[in-house]
């Protein structure tokens, strides 16, 4: 991880903001995948009864509408409807998700691709299919999809070689350091 963060900084992402955003995408992607795959295993129905939209309260309906709008999908994905059993929890999870995937230092198209790579690496059936659809919807073509698959696969190889031989990070020092303060803060 150290080597590629350093390499990415040398290749153009020199500031820290894109890396914070990438980390948030990785985290929240994994969070949703855990629930989506775990609570609706293949070959089985959902382990939690999903909330039907017409029976949801006003606040939950609003969250469901935002999900459909943000992802341009006709139906709210099952995982969100299962988590909607606690509307307050879903509202906070959704707010974090929406923030993580909104265009900012990184474009949404790249964020969907990072989420796809996370899902493929963790063998999440839900996440792989969901974020692949998102990549395509956001304009990534077949060559781009294959590029992300190739990078995911090759670096799944390098990481296992490094782990097997217990290589120690030796490239972290080559990355430029971002001395800017946190958003809204002052330089120290």
């Amino acid at each position, binding site marked *: *991880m*150290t*080597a*590629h*963060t350093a*390499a*990415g900084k*040398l*290749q*153009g*992402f020199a500031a820290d903001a*894109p*890396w914070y955003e*990438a*980390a948030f*995408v*990785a985290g929240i992607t*994994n969070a949703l995948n855990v629930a989506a795959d775990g609570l609706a295993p293949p070959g089985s129905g959902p382990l939690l009864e999903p909330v039907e939209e017409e029976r949801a309260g006003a606040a939950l309906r609003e969250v469901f509408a935002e999900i459909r709008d943000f992802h341009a999908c006709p139906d709210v994905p099952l995982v969100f409807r299962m988590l909607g059993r606690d509307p307050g929890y879903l509202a906070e999870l959704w707010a974090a998700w929406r923030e993580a995937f909104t265009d900012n230092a990184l474009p949404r198209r*790249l964020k969907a*691709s*990072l989420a796809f*790579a*996370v899902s493929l*690496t*963790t063998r999440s059936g839900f996440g792989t299919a969901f974020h692949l659809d998102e990549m395509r919807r956001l304009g*990534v*073509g077949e*060559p*781009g999809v294959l*590029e*992300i*698959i*190739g*990078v*995911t*696969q*090759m*670096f*799944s*190889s*390098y*990481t*296992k*070689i*490094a*782990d*097997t*031989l*217990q*290589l*120690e*990070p*030796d*490239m972290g020092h*080559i990355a430029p350091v971002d001395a800017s303060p946190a958003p809204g803060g002052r330089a120290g």
Partner: protein
Amino acid sequence: MPTVRLRDVSEYPEATRKLFDVAKSWFKYDFPRPPAMSRVMAWNPEFGGPHGRAMKRAAAPGEFTRAEKEMVAAIVSGVNACDY
């Protein structure tokens, strides 16, 4: 600590040593000595060669930039809990 002794550049055959220059241009960084992974992959050029070329084919600029792909690589490494 590595479970194998990583060889110094001078311990590799002359032809293999040339491959270490590729790392400098790939990373746009003048390493005083090649990174550990470069030296590992050079142990067997019949493996490291095609593996490296597949990586470069995937990671070269295309629909995504090289920097974007390094970010994908960093995320994959993070998810795999690999410090290197």
